[in-house]
């Protein structure tokens, strides 16, 4: 196999170009972040990443991201199910629209959701009198994150569900399983790797999200300020050390999630 593939030309030039490009654009700039962090003293770093305002931001970012990714997992599974198993008018359009959060710039999503949910908006005007406020508080953060994370679960579950062998379900039904049993014991276990991958992708995206959230969050310190906004705020005050420290924490979390996603995808490949 190896000697056969060597026949193809272009290995050195394509690999060389790939490594050069990645080094210049990704590795060197990221190492700048790490080196800048290492130049901070430990107390300096620790104070920056554990200030009460920063801790509140972590809590909001992770809490809202977890809620949003969970909603995405449930609704994404439902949407994938409906799109794969049922026929209804306008299905093609709905299928294409699922990708809207990928295609719509986040800033546009942010102002559109704010316009809908603010006190005078299409939805907000009905909710406000009932005492439900969805914009300019942590609820808004969750809603924006649900919006941007929606396609991940649908797009990871959809192909697996389409490839699912119907015979298995029929066998389960013939053997006396109720529909719920068939779903929870036969279908769901097969979908689990894809579902978890989609959940992790949505979570990773939600934790780093900035554009759509800042318009709807209200950005009150300690209440509705997300972690990326803390970094931007510190940069605007020329506090490069503080911004770098918080960014390093976020980068570490990204790495952990990336490894988790890789492991989940490997699991999914072994399953299929």
């Amino acid at each position: 196999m190896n000697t056969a593939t060597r026949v193809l030309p272009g290995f050195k030039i394509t690999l060389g170009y790939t490594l050069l490009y990645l080094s210049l654009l990704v590795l060197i700039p990221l190492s700048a972040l790490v080196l800048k962090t290492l130049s901070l003293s430990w107390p300096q770093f620790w104070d920056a990443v554990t200030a009460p305002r920063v801790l509140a931001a972590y809590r909001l970012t992770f809490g809202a991201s977890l809620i949003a990714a969970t909603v995405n997992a449930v609704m994404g599974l439902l949407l994938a199910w409906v799109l794969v198993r049922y026929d209804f008018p306008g299905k093609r359009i709905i299928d294409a629209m699922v990708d809207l959060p990928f295609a719509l710039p986040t800033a546009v999503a942010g102002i559109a959701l704010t316009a809908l949910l603010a006190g005078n908006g299409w939805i907000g005007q009905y909710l406000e009198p009932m005492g439900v406020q969805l914009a300019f508080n942590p609820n808004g953060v969750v809603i924006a994150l649900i919006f941007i994370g929606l396609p991940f679960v649908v797009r990871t579950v959809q192909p697996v569900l389409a490839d699912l062998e119907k015979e298995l379900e029929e066998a389960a039904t013939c053997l006396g399983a109720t529909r719920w049993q068939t779903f929870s014991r036969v279908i769901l276990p097969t979908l689990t790797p894809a579902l978890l991958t989609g959940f992790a992708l949505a979570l990773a995206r939600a934790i780093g999200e900035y554009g759509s959230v800042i318009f709807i969050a209200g950005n009150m310190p300690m209440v509705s300020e997300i972690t990326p906004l803390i970094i931007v705020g510190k940069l605007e005050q020329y506090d490069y050390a503080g911004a770098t420290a918080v960014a390093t924490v976020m980068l570490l979390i990204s790495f952990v999630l990336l490894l988790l996603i890789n492991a989940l995808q490997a699991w999914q490949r072994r399953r299929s």
Partner: protein
Amino acid sequence: MNPATVLITGGAATTNAPATSAPATSGAVQRPSRDRARSQLPWGRWCLITLALGFMVLFLMLPLAAVFAEALRKGWTAYWQALQEPDAWSAIRLTLLIAAIAVPLNLVFGVAAAWAIAKYEFRGKAFLTTLVDLPFSVSPVVAGLIYVLVFGAQGWLGPWLAEHNIRIIFAVPGIVLATVFVTLPFIARELIPLMQAQGSDEEQAAIVLGATGWQTFWHVTLPNIKWALIYGVILCNARAMGEFGAVSVVSGHIRGQTTTMPLHVEILYNEYQSVAAFAVASLLALLALVTLAVQSTVHWLHERELKAAAHLPPDRCGRPEESHP
């Protein structure tokens, strides 16, 4: 246990089993259960469809409609006026320029990286693939920050750049860099799995038959990957034009000079110029709709091509699917 009773006790409302299409060979014992299933299912099915569509309308369609409604709230004249503003125009020009630089750069990179990763075996390949994916999981704000740390006034190259009067941060080159970073994986991610699945038998045959490397790529590889390539380019372009977080950190928000369309939307919105903000936003929303339309057209064309290939004699449509480790 009798399947018929099982299906009756299993409530249709809470479960979402599909319409049973029992194989034609099924015995007479199953008949009653199938009839029962048919009479029960539509209700549960329409429940699920309604729930899914309701969610889609609430979370996707309404925000999209709101963009256009807000943009046109004061009529078409106000809308056109907002779009004819010089600052809006310079934002549109800058956005097009950024995409025109970032997309080709990542296109060449994506093809090169996919070729190296999919066609050869080497050590550290898994690590390289992860590295290509990395920009997806880095927060856009962090992506902007790393370039500030390299090129900014207090960064590594800051003093040298200042000496030579070169501006990267708070100028167009910085915006290009940040955009290239966040859109880097799009095309490579589409190509790598596809080229891995296709293997390299066809390319090897071409080389053995005397084609040059370039001819092999142009006449053998490119036709095989064209749909994935177009797909990747569209997604890359949409993100390049719409990126907000990373660009916002490096741009400095100099009006008319370093504001891309999404940044211009933010400035107008914060100045309470709602109609103008949504007017520019509506252009970006149109871009998103065009992206989705092209995306599903490409998907449809690709499927049609696969179906056509399936009708050919087996020796002509045989894709070496399992030839690669």
